[in-house]
């Protein structure tokens, strides 16, 4: 199992959980597992079978776009961070 950190803006889709476990050997499998259990996440994470351009996915602190994208391998014990852009400052 891998740990996925859910940012506050997406927690309304994950019953308020800040971390959830997900199964899969790649980012794609992990996100598929996650989105099958929390369908509300889909429009916030993917866009036409790609990671949506306004969200970043990090595996071990690295943006998966600089690795193998959705095919990036995720090892057991790894933490995956989902990071949508947020603009709040006031």
């Amino acid at each position, binding site marked *: 199992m891998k740990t996925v950190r859910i940012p506050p803006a997406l927690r309304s889709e994950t019953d308020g959980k*800040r971390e959830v476990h997900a199964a899969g050997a790649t980012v794609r499998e992990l996100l598929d597992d996650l989105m099958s259990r929390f369908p509300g996440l889909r429009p916030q994470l993917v866009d036409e079978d790609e990671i949506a351009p*306004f969200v970043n996915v990090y595996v071990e602190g690295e943006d998966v776009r600089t690795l193998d994208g959705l095919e990036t391998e995720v090892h057991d014990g790894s933490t995956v961070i989902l*990071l949508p852009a947020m603009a*709040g400052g006031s």
Partner: protein
Amino acid sequence: MASYRDLLAQVKTEIDEVDVPRAAEILDGPDKPLVVDVRELDEWTQGRIPGAIHIPRGFLESRIEQAAPDRSQPILLYCAGGARSAFGAKTLGELGYESVTSLAGGYTDWKRSGFATELPRTLDAAKRERYSRHILIPEVGEEGQLKLLDAKILLIGAGGLGSPASLYLAAAGVGRLGIVDDDRVDATNLQRQIAHSTETIGEWKADSARRTIEALNPDVDVVTYKERLTSENVDRILADGWDVIVDGADNFPTRYLVNDASVWHDIPVVHGSIYRFEGQVTVFKPHEGPCYRCLFPQPPPPELAPSCAEGGVLGVLPGIVGSLQANEALKLALQIGESLSGRLLLFDALAAEFSEVKLRRDPDCPVCGEHPTITEYIDYVEFCSGRPTHA
């Protein structure tokens, strides 16, 4: 037992000395040594050899590594008459410095021989007292404090992030602070926006913040822009000469506008954003590190991007994130430390946990990439509206 004279005579046999004419030749030559004035502060403020740095004899051992990390760096020490610098040269030799000389005759002979001197820029007594806790830090010191007093930092927004950032920058003695904000203080702001107060409800935030800053530190020159940052006014505002931008905006169009303008004007941006219990901080250094568009090429559709006004924010969170922004801005102004350029620091207030992810430049970035496709301001509201901007 050796007398002081014996000891000095002994030390002078163990070190290299140069007289004033030879020192003047060396300082005119191509391989200038680091010139260190080891006299006391009151002597230093009366005049120095041009270009010298000041490390009083009593702090020489503890501060020299900061000034000269490389042990092979040639160093010329001087004091008033050549005694303190002789002892200093011996000590630096013991610390492993390979090329240390002491100026025989010292500053007194230098001045008497008619060589150039200069009055160092120094802090007056009131400033030395106000900033004493900065001056005590070797990495800041009087020189660093003078840098801060010369620094010009522009704050985008005087709200949640801008409040703590502006107050700490003002307290630190940043000489000029610009504040861009077109909003007025209302009661809902006061749960977190500590630059404002119950008394200033209804005032422009820029004016309210200015009053608080001036009460905290009259050394700071506050420039207010009571307008929303737009494509039309951004060049005029940035032309006022800012060293660093602290971005505490509350909407995506302004974030992208600040980014594009900062890349074209080559001004580093200390970026902070907050939502509910979480904050993000990083530094965007144009052309050196990634920019905001490298991090987020596109804003989320508005329905997926709730603001603090819609989603709420824990009052202390902007205090933490805005203070981290002030920390980064001060480091940039002082040119010390490791900036957050290339790293995004995430703070989770509920877990009381910091984490960090790596940011990289995108060679295909439309603004800072190798072949930029956006070279002038666009319609940022349209760009962030979620409607397609290009066919």
